[in-house]
């Protein structure tokens, strides 16, 4: 998952194609240590802007570790690690299903430490996949379209609203194009798994000529400039971070249920610098104890208390169940149904 797919200028200026790498790199940054002794190679889906505070803090604690930080999309990341066997020490991704597949298919190393033991059971799998953030998918409503407190907070209410006032929202509802967005696909499959309302909502949105997006950034852009009134299944942490830049929208945590994505780290099975990768995993696993980093990165740390205080929050479960939606036949059938619903063909 990428936070942004637009900053082509940055890509142009920073992308220097690795000769051996057939996968597509979005950005690459090297953080040289003051006293370099080792190098930690990370492949990640998180933007540099988001992750840099964490990397810098890590380097303050471990001043001898240089960090090579490579950013790629979830799909490209999977391609690099799973298919092409690129050498990275640590794989950080928001695609829980793909991270699970990495571990299931033997591309991850087992690691246990007091820090990982302290993680709740739902935040790790096989001692190979370690979650360090919990980020809900949210409903974004334009303030112009919903100036008052009268706005939907559940899927049922949303469906009713869209059905009742089709003219008001025609062409002004947006969601992920799950065919190209890994995050969108994962959220859609989880929605479908949890509730039959998903297909009804999709059909309603299809009838209103819903607009499909590659990424959260574009959706928020259109909300801000008034093209969209409603954006469904936007990554909450990103929307929260962007709210400061101009605002103009409302973030709604659905009261019936809100899927929570866990950003996870995996130590690659072919890692060359296992030690530093492990230190980084410990560092990430204890993110909760660094509120400064949480604030700087906008990444909410693992917090069981928050989940207990709001029963609608449902962390997506790590484990073999996630593999079901990666099955190509299942995916093909799902996408076929999705297309049928959303395009109303």
């Amino acid at each position, binding site marked *: 998952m990428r936070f942004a797919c637009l900053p082509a200028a940055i890509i142009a200026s920073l992308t220097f194609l690795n000769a051996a790498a057939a996968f597509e790199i979005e950005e690459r940054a090297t953080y040289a240590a003051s006293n370099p002794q080792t190098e930690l190679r990370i492949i990640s889906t998180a933007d540099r802007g988001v992750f840099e505070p964490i990397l810098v803090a890590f380097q303050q604690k471990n001043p001898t570790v240089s960090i090579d930080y490579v950013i790629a999309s979830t799909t490209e990341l999977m391609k690099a690690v799973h298919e092409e066997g690129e050498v990275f020490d640590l794989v950080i991704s928001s695609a829980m299903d793909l991270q699970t597949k990495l*571990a299931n298919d*033997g591309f991850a190393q087992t690691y246990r430490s007091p820090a990982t033991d302290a993680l709740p059971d739902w935040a790790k799998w*096989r*001692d190979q996949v370690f979650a360090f953030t919990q980020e809900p998918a949210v409903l974004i409503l334009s303030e112009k379209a919903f100036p008052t407190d009268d706005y939907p907070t559940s899927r049922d209410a949303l469906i009713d609203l869209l059905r009742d006032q089709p003219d008001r929202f025609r062409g002004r509802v947006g969601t992920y194009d799950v065919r190209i967005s890994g995050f969108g696909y994962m959220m859609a499959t989880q929605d479908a798994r949890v509730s039959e309302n998903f297909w009804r909502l999709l059909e309603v949105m299809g009838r209103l000529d819903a607009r499909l997006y590659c990424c959260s950034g574009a959706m928020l852009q259109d909300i801000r400039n008034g093209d969209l009134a409603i954006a469904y299944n936007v990554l909450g942490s990103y929307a929260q971070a962007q709210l400061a830049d101009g605002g103009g929208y409302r973030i709604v945590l659905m009261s019936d249920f809100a899927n929570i994505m866990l950003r996870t780290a995996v130590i690659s099975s072919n890692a060359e610098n296992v030690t530093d990768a492990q230190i980084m995993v410990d560092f990430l696993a204890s993110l909760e104890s660094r509120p400064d980093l949480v604030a700087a990165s906008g990444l909410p740390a693992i917090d069981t208390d928050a989940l207990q205080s709001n029963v609608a929050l449902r962390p997506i479960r790590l484990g073999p169940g996630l*593999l079901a*939606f990666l099955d190509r036949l*299942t995916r093909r*059938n799902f996408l076929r149904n999705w297309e049928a619903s959303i395009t109303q063909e």
Partner: protein
Amino acid sequence: MTFPPLTRSIRTRLFLQLAAISALLSVALFLVVRGLAETAAEATQDGILSASATSIADALRSEDGEITLDLPYSALSMLGTTNDDRVFYKVEVNGETLTGYDDLPAPTDAPTISRNTFATFDYRGDEVRMVSASRTVSAGGVPSNVLISVAQTRLGLAAISQRISAIATGVGLVFFLVATALSLLAARSALRPLKELTAAVTRRGPADLRPLAIQPPTELEPFVSALNTFIARLRASLLRSEDLIAEAAHRVRTPLATVRAKAEVTHRKLNKPEHRQTMREMIRAIDESSRSAGQLLDHAMVTFRTDSLATESIDMGELVRETVARLEPAADLKDATIRCTIPKQPPHFTGDRILLQSAIQNILDNAIKYSPDDSDIAVTLTAVDTLRLDVSDQGRGFGDTDTNTLKARFSRGANVDDIVGSGLGLTIADEVARAHGGTLAITRNEGAKGACVSLVFPLQ
């Protein structure tokens, strides 16, 4: 049959045997518990795998003449409920992979519609357990054979197995320890009758030759009955011996008494001094032999009784008074006076009354014998620090004889040729003293005539 020292103890042998059996049972218990638990764990995994394969099979459908499938989320997620094992699956239609892991091997044992098959093999670096199920699905009117395989690594099973092994080891160990402790108790309790029997025999006084009245366990009945037979024989034999000794003493002493009486009568009637002297010597010879016989019997009795000392509470003051009273006539004959000093409340002493009386009598007898006419014999009982009986006379003492040798058998002072004696008196007293943990002390009276013979016992 002889055993090495360790195993000569029945208890040790019993205990070792029971402990060995416990150890075997513990190992067996360990193996059974682990085997059962592992079988159960494996069955559980097989059951979940089967459920998963069935769930996938049930999702098969035909669409546009093709077989297709929406992999149920639960089919795979259920495999992650009990452990974190890796999961692989493959769906084949007529031998062609429909979806899943292409390289997952085909089952060696082909499943049928009614029977799933299981296989265990290495796959992608781990041992996996695979279930295969078979279904026939009609696609476009043509029945196709669909093979569903679901595999899962067995790390969770290994972890369970490890945990079970640890528990089984614990159970086995606890069983062993408990069983061993119980063996110890059992061995002890099994041998308690023996201990009681031993105590019953040991407790007996020297003269107690009644049969054992205890009710032994069945196994010990022959032994107790044999022991009782032996006791009966011993008692009969002892009675015979006692009767024999009594009879012998009677047979010897009665004629001696006759001779002595006649000799005294004759002595009285004789007038010539030389005849009278001869008769006197005869009488003294008779006295000497009878006295020796008496002391020999006494000494034998002392030896017998000290082997198994009777223990009764004795009022020592009373005992001394009685013995003195008994010997007073003999002292009177010589105008000797026995002066008795006994504390008002002499301590009770635990010991053999007959032996103690014999010792005191022998000491007093000696003192009277060696006392000059018109002399005093001081008998003093004290109970300060030790229980001490001093018998002090004004006789000739023991001369230069080493006081220690006086205690030896048939040893007499160097200056007593003119007095009848066997030399056993002090030996008897000494043996009695030692049997009671005390000593016999012989001291010369400083600055005065005579000697002091003391019995010294520790206060109880």
